[in-house]
């Protein structure tokens, strides 16, 4: 009898601490007083030279692409550069016009508009292809048997990047014009919705089958390589090459600043490992000097498309 009692007692003595020990928590709280409140006032922003990348991709990608370049420029020139992120092409243009963007990195079509507002091109990029030019592409789903040539695009649903997109709308539109296809010949012509990331949205819309054809800047497919199976997308046609993306300084920006930045940019050498990393992140092979005259082919195309406003 005594043995049984002892056994029970031992069992209880073992179990009870097990039952209660697990309830203990070793977290110690930090004391805060939520009733002590203040109205926060943001510190004044440091004056800086603003740098903006035409929002053809999402802000994140834009930031990722140009962060290293900006750091490089800041370090090399000693200028306080800050990247800002307009949401749309239109906003970008407006901000340049208003002088909110000092250094604009935009496509040639946007540049043509900026130039009208007094912006001055001072550098252009060498595309990853090695050329200082770039092209647009017309894509369709690989399994869409109805579309094999450009002419098959007639009457189809078309999604383009933005009315101001060079590679993603205007170059292919010129190509369609060359084939005698007018805007009114399409069933619908839509543009990628929302802010930023518009090139990717086009690929994804075609991939999803919401649109029959899409137009993108050449090189976009590499960007979405990790998002979709590239085998399911077929490049129907490519436009002719146009001068590539361009760096322009707003009207009235100190030429010394522009010069310092331009020199730093031109100093970037793809053969240097450090520079290669910067250029590669930005999706370019190098930066070369540019003049406004280089963009006349684009101005002509705009005229042809009756976009010369």
């Amino acid at each position, binding site marked *: 009898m005594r043995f049984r009692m002892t056994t029970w007692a031992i069992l209880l003595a073992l179990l009870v601490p097990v*039952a209660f020990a697990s309830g203990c928590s070793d977290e110690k709280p930090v*004391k805060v*007083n939520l009733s002590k409140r203040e109205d926060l006032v943001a510190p004044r922003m440091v004056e800086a030279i603003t740098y903006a990348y035409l929002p053809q991709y999402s802000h*994140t990608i834009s*930031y990722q692409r140009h962060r290293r370049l900006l750091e490089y420029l800041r370090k090399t020139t000693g200028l306080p550069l800050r990247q800002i992120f307009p949401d749309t092409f239109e906003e970008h243009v407006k901000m340049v016009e208003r002088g909110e963007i000092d250094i604009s990195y935009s496509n040639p079509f946007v540049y043509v508009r900026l130039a009208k507002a007094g912006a001055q091109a001072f550098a252009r990029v060498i595309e990853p292809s090695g050329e200082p030019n770039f092209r647009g592409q017309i894509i369709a789903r690989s399994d869409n048997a109805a579309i094999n040539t450009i002419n098959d695009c007639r009457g189809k649903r078309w999604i383009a990047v933005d009315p101001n997109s060079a590679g993603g709308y205007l170059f292919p539109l010129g190509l369609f014009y060359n084939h005698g296809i007018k805007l009114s010949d399409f069933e619908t012509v839509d543009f990628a919705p929302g802010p930023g990331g518009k090139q990717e949205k086009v690929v994804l819309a075609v991939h999803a089958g919401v649109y029959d054809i899409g137009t993108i800047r050449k090189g976009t497919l590499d960007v979405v390589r990790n998002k979709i199976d590239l085998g399911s997308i077929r490049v129907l046609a490519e436009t002719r090459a146009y001068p590539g993306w361009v760096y322009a300084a707003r009207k009235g920006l100190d030429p010394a600043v522009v010069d310092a930045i331009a020199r730093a940019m031109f100093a970037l050498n793809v053969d240097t490992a450090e520079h290669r990393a910067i250029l590669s992140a930005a999706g370019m092979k190098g930066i070369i000097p540019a003049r406004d005259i280089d963009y006349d082919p684009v101005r002509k195309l705009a005229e042809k498309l009756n976009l010369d406003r």
Partner: protein
Amino acid sequence: MRIFPRLKFRTKLNLGMSAILVGMAVLLLPLIGTMSANSLVEESKKRGSALAEGLSVRAVDPLLARDFLRLKNMVDEQSSVEDVIYAFVQDKNGFVLVHTFQKGFPVDLIDANKVATGQPLHIQLLADGSRRIYDFAAPVLVSDGRLGTVRIGLSQARIQMAVQRQLTLMAALFAGALILATSLGTVFARRVTARLGRLRAHAEEMLTGNLDTFSGPEWGIHCWEKQQCNTTQCPAYGETRRRCWYIAGTMCPDCNNEGNFQCRLESCRRCAVYRENAGDEIQDLAETFDVMALSLKSHIEELRDAERNLRDQQRLTRTILDVSPDRVSLVDSTMRYRGCNKSFAESVGMSLAEIEGKTDFDLFPEAEAEERHMAARDILQSGRRLDTQLMVEAGGGEHWFHVVCVPVFNDKGHIDGLLRTDRDISDIKRYENQLIQAQKMESLGLLAGGVAHEINTPLGIILGYAQLLQEDVDAGSQIHQDLAIIEKQTQVCKKIVADLLGFSRQTQSAKREMCFNNSVMEAVSLVRHTLELDKVEIITQLDDRYPIIYGDPEKLKQAWINLLTNARDAMAGQGGTILIRTRLDTPGGIVSLWVADNGSGIAEEALKKIFDPFYSTKAVDKGTGLGLSVSFGIIEDHGGDIRAESPVPKDFGFPSDAKRGAGGGGTVFEVNLPLDHEGPEGGEPEKE
């Protein structure tokens, strides 16, 4: 304080089930509560982390675009989540860009939680007076660059409330389970204990002697009905109180009639009757119980019969033993008395019950006990029976016993005890002695008769010649006197020879009706003169009614003379008085004669032997020892009896002025003779 063993079985079952559930609840609730609390906290932390990380990812674009509206919308979305207390976004310098607080921002929060570079998230428990908050800080990262920090505060109280809810729910579940288990347990226990209670009640009834109880279920179909069998000689046929598998020797072809109960039961398990009727363990128990009661009842009845038989046998044996005059006793191997008969008990003066367990030494004088003990031990050791005759002196006399003592063997052949029978053969012994004496007397009589007959003739011639020679000599001469002495002594010899002849010869008695007093007076007159010479006075007190008896006057006279001379001899020559008294007792049909003297008397030991032939206390030349023996024979021949008493009783009425004798108390002889008589061979009495 043994409370638990006294509780009802039903209560114990309920208590046991409740104790298990309560014990489980007590042990598991804290454990599960803690585990679920921990998992809920973990889950909440994961949720908070997911919220913070999600917010940090989504905040990238608005942060880059410095779109405070979108940022504000984003943090406001977070605060719409149930337990989110606050959410805010800091830039990389720690400045709060947007937050969900309505009036001002609690500045303590800014530095309350920091996420280090390279860490994906940091969770910090905050305490604000009454409540606790989990603060999640997630860095807003783009590539490897950091744009700022997203902070979300989750109420711990809500987590605890959820934990509490869960615990309450579980406690309720346990309580529900407890109630359900107790209710079900009660129903179950009641069913079980009701049957057990019935069994117990029947067991109690059995204890009080009622074996006609029936514990098993009454439902179920009987085998002969189910099998539609008409084997009326089968022991199971018509049996309603026992299931067929409890009955040995059933004649069903499907049954295994051999082997024990378990073997039979094996074959029963396949039988349709069994499958229909067999129940659970309690039913088995109840049915077994019934069978047990039934067989117990029949066994008890058999036992009672046997007991009655045994009792009858015992009574018979006891009667046989008790009516036997033999002393029968039984001792065990330790020589203690285990039984005896009435005669034995009386002989030792104890009751039958008292004797049981006693030893010889408790019952008998030491010498006798020792003797019995030794004999018994000898038999126990040797196993030989004892068959002997023993003389025991008790009550002032000798008693002869024929003793048979036999060993009693048990079923293993070992001696278990002794049975001893002591038969009183004192009478037989006495008759045997008398027979021997009679044989001796007969031989002696023949011898004496022969000798007396041979001597009688020469004695007659001697007497004749002596008398003739007296006539031839002068009357006063010496020769005449000598011859007179010769004649006298010859007469004495003749008398002796005549006695001898009378003793030895089986002469036919010449009985006739005669006067008893005359016969006495004749004898007195014959001896009076001679006795007076010896200074012995004879006083007669005769009944004057002159009783008439049927007898031989001569023989009776002889007997009286013997008695008188015997009395004279008791005087030892010193003279005395002899009182002769006769009395007629007509109603008793007897006539009595007493011859009393005041002589030397007879010793008590000698009194028993005085009637034996040749027994004499006198000197060798003073008597033959035949007188009283002859008298005894004569009286017996007349159908009477004779006995002697010494000293003379005081109330006898012996004259106090009588002539003093030798002194010694004297002796009185009493003779009783019957008045009625039967003639020889029933014939007419001979007339005088």
